[in-house]
């Protein structure tokens, strides 16, 4: 009589384990399938067209069979870089204020509010960019308004929640004894913050910025709306640009044949860039946890 119950217990245990394992692997298999699909659709084109020609030619004229994505790569990099210039200082400064200077009650209100920013659909950011930001840039700085600068501003704000919440977490993870030790030696709060706390939380902050970059480079809708989408290597912040993501989203619905493959190949390039960024970020995070 004992045996069946025992067996049942074991099988129940095993069963749950199996089910959990399958669910965990389904997430991984999704990313694998996506990777396989994109590579399968895009790689043959890259080899057929020539890697050098594809990556470094500035001519993107699908109707004439010319597929050079250099302007899009440069634009994506510039847009991301610009978003970082705007978003990273704001985000890190915000995180320092929230953790080191603001009373706990203020942090309890402000942090969820900032995280709410992440829940705003990107099309809303794009809309604000088109209606408010672009006319301001056009009237005060010149150019068409829909520009690199507008995209940088919008993305800079969009990456704030990522940068702030991960920075806050990593600053809070610094042991209290570090701060207490520094304060006990007579250092002020700011001295403690920039000499002790930030140093200890550095890799986490770097990771937050890199994850923010990943978000910026992958953003599509808001960028299509505010960047103007000209296929053009930007020479000034007021130029209109088209990012890699925008290129795919704009033309995918119309593309057939070689053009379609070229868009998948654009996806491959984007995928590689994002993998590189994410691995840098996860190395940085790992360093924070085990490297001290």
């Amino acid at each position, binding site marked *: 009589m004992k045996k069946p119950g025992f067996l049942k217990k074991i099988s129940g245990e095993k069963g749950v384990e199996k089910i959990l394992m399958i669910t965990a692997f389904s997430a991984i298999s999704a990313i694998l399938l996506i990777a396989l699909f994109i590579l399968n659709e895009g790689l043959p084109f890259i080899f057929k067209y020539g890697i050098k020609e594809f990556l470094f030619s500035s001519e993107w*004229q*699908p*109707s004439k069979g010319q597929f050079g994505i250099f*302007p899009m790569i440069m634009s994506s990099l510039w847009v991301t870089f610009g978003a970082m210039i705007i978003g990273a200082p704001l985000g890190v400064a915000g995180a320092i204020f929230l953790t080191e200077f603001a009373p706990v009650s203020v942090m309890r209100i402000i942090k969820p509010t900032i995280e709410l920013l992440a829940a705003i659909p990107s099309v809303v950011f794009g809309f604000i960019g*088109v*209606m408010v930001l*672009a*006319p301001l840039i*056009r009237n005060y700085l010149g150019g*068409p*308004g*829909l520009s690199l600068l507008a995209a940088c501003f919008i993305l800079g704000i969009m990456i704030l929640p990522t940068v702030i919440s991960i920075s806050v977490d990593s600053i809070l993870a610094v042991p209290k004894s570090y701060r207490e030790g520094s304060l006990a030696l007579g250092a002020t709060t700011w001295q403690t913050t920039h000499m002790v706390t930030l140093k200890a939380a550095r890799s986490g902050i770097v990771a937050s910025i890199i994850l923010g970059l990943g978000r910026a480079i992958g953003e599509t809708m808001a960028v*299509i*709306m505010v960047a*103007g*989408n*000209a*296929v*053009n290597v930007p020479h000034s912040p007021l*130029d*209109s640009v*088209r990012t890699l993501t925008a290129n795919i*989203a*704009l*033309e995918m*619905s*119309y*593309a*057939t044949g070689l*053009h379609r493959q070229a868009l998948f190949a654009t996806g491959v390039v984007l995928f590689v860039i994002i993998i590189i960024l994410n691995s840098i970020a996860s190395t940085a995070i790992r360093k924070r946890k085990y490297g001290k």
Partner: protein
Amino acid sequence: MLKKIASFLSIIAIILIISGCGKPKTSITLAGSTAFQPFAEKLAEQYMAINKNVSITVQGGGSAVGIQSANSGAAQIGMADLVVLPDEAKSLIATVVARDGIAMVVNPKNKVENLTAEQIRDIFNGKITNWKEVGGDNTPITVVSREAGSGTRSSFEQIITGISLKKDALIQDSNGSIRETVSNDVNSIGYLSHGLVNAKVKAIKLDKTECTVENIVSGSYKLVRPIFLLVKGNLDGENKNFIDYILSPEGQKVITGNGLLPAK
């Protein structure tokens, strides 16, 4: 807790299954041209009100998608708004159901009233970059075009001829966003479906001909493209009934009443 969730989900599933039941209907899917999509939706709505046993779904996607999905069978009827149908569409039965003018639009504050086809070509190619060269203020021209593959863009480029779009032209992905961009930017010029011109933008004359219904019908306005419905195989059954309905006086009334031009 889990039980509550499970019962909640099963209630939803039951509701969905019940609501899905009903009389079997013939279903037709239309896909393609975003310029014709709103018209197709309206026509489908009216047709379904008369024929209760037919259900029509209308999807966008663009002319290329229209041709592709008619070929693959993903849609029974493809919609395309190109001057010249590409080779892939050769095997499909094409019916012209309407025609559409393409209006050249500028900001209402712009003084320029008329451009020649030559000037438009030079502006879009980047040879003319300032409005003063074509009789306007001394301000730079912002060119706004559609994405590669758009039916409106390829029709525009085929009729104006010789266009190799300048590199810093802004690209917008729909008629609506072209209108929005032009209405926001005093210096911009773009083109969009005649039916979508409103007070926010100013349609200018092309070779001294205004973009009006009369001029398009008489053929004096050059920028006109046909709108095709594409069917694979034989044109029969409900597909034919629906296309016949669009070509009937009642269907054509919907088309002309909303800014497009009759097929004939």
